[in-house]
Each structure stands twice: as structure tokens, then as C-alpha cells.
């Protein structure tokens, strides 16, 4: 928190940080085996940062889980492994590729693997016996998420039932669940994209370089800048060119687009985010564009 506080009022960032820490401690306090979904993306990085604060001066008392589509950017995987090592944590990786190799999942015609993450995720939750699953989702990301709870019950199929959610009252969270069920917990529920960036700036949190503007060979498809990657089929009609771009989310390379940007510092990114006219997911995730209800459908299926 800031040193120059003269009133008793918390600033927005201090209030959000304390709320996030409260949520994490509350969920861990009642959990048998918690886990954090960690992709190396900025939101999961911030949740991990809050967890280090929540349990200081002890280590974070839970494992990390990454559902690897096999289409990740190399530098994000390197960042992930470096972070895990630095904090002395244990990382479990559930690989979509394993499921494709042995036929449990099939590639989609469009090549995107984001929707394929659901089954490996749910299997990992069952196999490792996780009962509390932390994620970095925010309510401001997308319409369906605006109605998501901080602590969200999932059934045996990992499904979210938007019409049957538990009321969430005061700061009393209810992670109680039956055997076979689990809860997803979202400590950043009340953060906006701008809050996340301000916090990263204030706390000097390390991020993958993809978030900052850099020169990269890209080509345009469906109005997004995609980068040539083993997972992205470059068509004859695509003409890659070098542009200054950055990523606003760092998911599956096959469907995560870059945005043209020269924002190479946190100050510049904050100015860009504040002035931006396209919501984060609308700009950069092809799979959210499939239909207006795309996110809601995938949430019901058990995807984050």
C-alpha cells in the first residue's frame, strides 16, 4: 500500500488488493487441495502475486496447473517455468497434445485448440483431487462473466449453471461443495483491465515480453494480426509483413491476435488501454467471436 496515505480511505488498488488477498485466504482456509490455473498470462500472474502476499512470509501453499494447448508461445512457456522456479512451487501440466495423440480429442477443422482445453482441465481436476481452482477471470472481460460469482460452484461435469448460482453476500464466500464438485475462485472478479495494468506497474510485476510492443512478422486474418507459428496454417493468400505489435492476451497462438501498437512501457500500455475502443477479448480472441453467446457456452462446458 502507498506510504503517503493520510486519510483512512483505501485507494482503489489497495482495496482491490486486500479484497483479492481476502478471497484467496478464505478459499484456501476451507480447501482440501487448492490449485491455481497458471498460464503465464497477466491475470494469472497477478493472482499468483496476490497469493505470495496472502501467505507471506510462507510460500504459496498450493500447486499451479497449466492446460497446455501445444500452441503456446515459447516465450510464455519460458516465463511460466521461470516464475514457478523462482517461487519454489510445483507445476502440473495437462497437455491437449496427449489427448490428440491417443485419440481422446480430435483437432477442429479451424485448427483452434482453445475449446479442447475443457476435457484435459476437468480430468486434471479429478485426477489430482483439486477442490478449489483459482483463476484470473475478471467480470469486466465479457458479458457472461459479469454475472459470474467470485466463488463459483461447478458440478461433476465442470458445468456452470448461470440460472442457479449461489447468492454472494457481504464478503462471506461459500466454497462448500459435495464430493465430485469443485469451486472456481476468481480473486480478480472486481478488477478491470486498467486496474490490472496499474497494479502490475505499482508492484513492478514481471510479465512475458509479448505484452510489450515489438517488431514481429504478422499477417492479417479476420481483422486480427496473427503470427506465423507451427499452429497457424499460413495460406498462399497471407502475406506476412513486419509490424510493431503487442498482445493483450497471451493464449493459444492459433487464435490469439496481436494488436498494432508502439506501447513498449507500462505507462504507454496504460495510456493505450485507457484510450482503447475495443474490449480485450473482442480484439484478440477469434474463438469469442464465433457467436455472441460463445463465452457463455464455453463456461457452461467447464472452460474458464
Amino acid at each position, binding site marked *: 500500500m502507498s506510504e503517503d496515505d493520510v486519510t483512512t480511505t483505501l485507494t482503489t488498488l489497495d482495496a482491490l488488493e486486500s479484497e483479492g488477498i481476502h478471497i484467496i485466504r478464505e478459499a484456501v482456509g476451507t480447501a482440501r487441495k487448492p490449485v491455481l490455473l497458471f498460464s503465464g498470462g497477466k491475470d494469472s500472474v497477478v493472482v499468483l502475486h496476490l497469493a505470495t502476499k496472502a501467505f507471506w512470509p510462507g510460500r504459496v501453499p498450493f500447486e499451479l496447473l497449466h492446460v497446455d494447448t501445444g500452441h503456446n508461445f515459447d516465450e510464455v512457456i519460458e516465463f511460466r517455468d521461470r516464475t514457478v522456479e523462482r517461487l519454489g512451487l510445483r507445476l502440473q501440466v495437462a497437455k491437449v497434445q496427449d489427448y490428440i495423440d491417443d485419440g481422446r480429442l480430435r483437432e477442429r477443422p479451424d485448427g483452434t485448440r482453445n475449446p479442447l482445453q475443457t476435457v484435459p482441465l476437468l480430468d486434471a481436476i479429478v485426477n489430482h483431487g483439486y477442490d478449489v481452482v483459482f483463476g484470473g477471470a475478471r467480470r469486466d472481460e465479457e458479458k457472461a462473466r459479469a454475472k459470474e460469482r467470485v466463488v463459483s460452484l461447478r458440478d461433476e461435469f465442470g458445468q456452470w449453471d448461470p440460472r442457479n448460482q449461489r447468492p454472494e453476500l457481504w464478503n462471506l464466500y461459500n466454497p462448500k461443495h*459435495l464430493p465430485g464438485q469443485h469451486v472456481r475462485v476468481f480473486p480478480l472478479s472486481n478488477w478491470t483491465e486498467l486496474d490490472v495494468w496499474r497494479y502490475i506497474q505499482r508492484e513492478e510485476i514481471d510479465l512475458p515480453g509479448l505484452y510489450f510492443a515489438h517488431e514481429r512478422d504478422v499477417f492479417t486474418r479476420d481483422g486480427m494480426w496473427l503470427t506465423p507459428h507451427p499452429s497457424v496454417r499460413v495460406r498462399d493468400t497471407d502475406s506476412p509483413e513486419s509490424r510493431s505489435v503487442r498482445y493483450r492476451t497471451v493464449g493459444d497462438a492459433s487464435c490469439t491476435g496481436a494488436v498494432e501498437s508502439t506501447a513498449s512501457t507500462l505507462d504507454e500500455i496504460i495510456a493505450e488501454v485507457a484510450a482503447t475502443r475495443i474490449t480485450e477479448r473482442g480484439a484478440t480472441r477469434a474463438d469469442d467471436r464465433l457467436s455472441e453467446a460463445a463465452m457463455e457456452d464455453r463456461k457452461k462446458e467447464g472452460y474458464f
Partner: protein
Amino acid sequence: MTAPETTDVAASIPDARRTSLLRFATAGSVDDGKSTLVGRLLHDTKSILADAYEAMERVSKERGGEEVDLALLTDGLRAEREQGITIDVAYRYFSTPQRTFILADCPGHVQYTRNTVTGASTADALVVLIDARYGVVEQTKRHLAVAALLRVPHVIVAVNKIDLLDYAQGPFRSITQHVQTHAESLGLTNVVTVPVSALKGDNVALRSDLTPWYDGPTVLEVLETVPSIDQGADDFAAAHRRGIVHPTAEQARATETGWRMPVQWVLRPQDAAISPEHREYRGYAGQVAEGTIRVGDDVVVQPSGRRTTVAGIDTADGPLDQAHTGLSVSIRLADDVDVARGDLLSSAADAVAPERAFHAHVAWLTDRPLRVRDRVLIQHGSARVQAMVTAIDGILDISLPGGTLDSSIATGHELLLNDIGVVRFQLAQPLAVEDYGRHRRTGAFCVIDPQDGNTIGAGTARASAPGIGADAHVTI
């Protein structure tokens, strides 16, 4: 109407490192124009992003509308879009250079109590919508009753659709009078009425030229200036001097009373310490529920009643001399007393007394009725204990004459969905439950179904009454 403009002036970017945070909720009946008001607030504070705005434009055109329907912004789920209604509390975020807002948008038809109670429980302010053509209706009284029960510090009544009454002053004045009389009998002393047209944008975020007879604040001005729950006495006084709000005696008193902190987790790292010097660290982690904790304060641990003093207040960023309401910290105690998750640390001055039985207003949130002798779980702070319903003293009926919360209790022996009743509980273990009127955090609790784990009730404890038991009757 045009899409929101971009801004590239760095200085105008709301800075969460400096702004304060206000949580507020909106409530209204069907067709009061609540979704439009929310859309209007977001639109006029330039919080609607271009792609979201374009999607609204597209859908409005598909439906044959001429103007962009701002209500579309808040229709989140597919079921709602198909039915054209809102079914669940949705959270929205926007900011101005002064403040960051978290808006709990509570739908007003079915599940009204459930939704309004949920939204109001975390709210610093409640915006209640009234259709200026119809004035105060039953739903309005219900919303005001919920605001009074949950002690929402500030209520803003937006008298909407004044454009349909040609911006006349008369109806607004009589509605204001009606609202104030009703609010006063409920014990709500801080209710502001604002004449608005959400559709046209009058007095929501921008002052209207069409209501020259109104010199009060816009809805946004009230929201930007009322103190939040986390704010202390100094801020109340400052706001009071600016003539914006009138802090109740209760709020003023709450800032003078002691502090409370439920213990969430015992920090005792041992081998998991991040460095050897912290191996033997022992601290009690929690979020300050109320008041200000200072190093050296005398402490009582509840329910054990053990006493000690605060030896230190720690955070990952370093030690503090004091910690205010809302801050997540770790408290070190001077003596090696037994403290576990579920305990409540409180200042020795104005300490909490744990109880084996208490009574409370309970809002019932599930289809299965609550009856005497039902077994439930009570979640209070970080504690969760078994409880039994020993009596149901009555049900809130806002149509009863008198208009006060106490005069509106009708006879009733079970609570149905959306009922609010007076319920007595017997506890398996003592809990430091306090009067919600004085302690919003430590007076609040959830009722949980011990079988499926669902949250089925929201409770606000009342000052303890004599003669607890199934046959006891107290004046309420």
C-alpha cells in the same frame, strides 16, 4: 447519440492508485428503466467500449429501434437476451477521475428480494428507481425496507421518466415527499431524490437544462461524493462540510467504536518460510472488518475470551503502525495464545461477547421453506457453525400500517422464498455475533444448507433480547 470518444490525455485517465472505490447497487421494478439508467451512466461516463457499443447498435437496428437501446448493454446471458429480461445480479465497472465504481445491477422482478439483498449487502449506496408516472409503489417500499434492513449508508431515489411528464416539478415534489416520509419511518435518514430521464440523459451524469427548478446534485455527483463504508470519521466530516451527505449518528458512532478482525489463516511457515529468518514467524491473517488496529492495542480473542496485545501488524510490503478497515494484514500477538481460523480478534475496549443463541432478520433465498427446528449452518466472518431454528417470530409485510420495520412484522411460522422474517437460532458453538445496526460486518451472516452446501439465507443479527426460546415472544 454517438459512440464514446477516445481520449489520449494521460492526465484524464482515472488512476486507481489515487481514486477511492465506491460499491453501489441499483434496484427498480420491471419497466422502471433501470437497465437504461445503468446504460446511461456507463455511456455518459464514456465507459462503453466501441465494440460493445457497435453490438448494441446492431441489435437495436435488428429489433427495429431508431435509437440505440442502452438497456442492451446490461443484458448479459443468452436466456435474458431471448426473454428480453434480466435474471441475475450483474456487476459493472466504470470510473471517473475522482472515483472507481463497482455497480451491482439487481433485476427487479422475480427473485427481487434475493437479488436486492445480494446487491445491497456490499453496497455503500443504493440507487432505487421510481417511474415518475406511478410514484412510490409496493416494490419501492420493499427496496427501501431492504436498504433499511441492510443499513445501506446512502440511498438515492432516481425519479425516472420525467420527460414523459414534460419535466414538471409537481410530480417530483410530491414523490419526494412521499419517499421521505416513508424513508423516515424506516429509519433511513440519508435519502436523496433526483429527477431524471435515463432515456434522454437528464440529471444522470449530466445536469439537465430542462429542470431549472432542481438545484440538487445529479445521480453521478451523489455517487462521486458520498463516503464509502471503508471511510472513517474524517471523511464523513469532510463530506458533511461540503454539504453533500448527512452521516447518521450510527455511522459516526461506528467510526468511534473498537475494531474487529476475523482470523482466516494462521501464518506459521516453519519449513515453508520464504527465508530462514521467518521460520518461527507466527501471525494471524485476516482483513480488518471494522475500525483501526494499532500496534500495542489490547486484544480479546473470541470465542475463547483470552486477552493479549497487538505486537505487530505485518504485510508482505512491510510492517504497519496501524491498519484501517478493509486492509488485509497479518497480526502478531504478544502472548502465545491459542488462535485458529474462525476466531474473531477484537479490541479489548468495546469487545464482543460471544453468544450461544441470537435472533436476526433473515431474508430467505431458496424454494424450500425455513421452519422451526430446521438445522442449518451459519457462516459468520471466517467461522462456520451448526445451528438450529428455535423460533420464527414473524414475517416482514410492508403493506402493514405504521411503516416502520418493527410495525411491519406479520404473524408467520415459516419463511418462503423472498420472505424476510425474524428468526431465532441456537448455536452448537458460541459465536461473536453483534447487532448489525452497529456492526455491519460482524452482524452479518449467511445461512447455508448443511446437505447441499448452498447459500439459502442472508441474516442481519439484532441486539440480543431476553427469553430466547421456542415460546418466547419479544416486542420487535
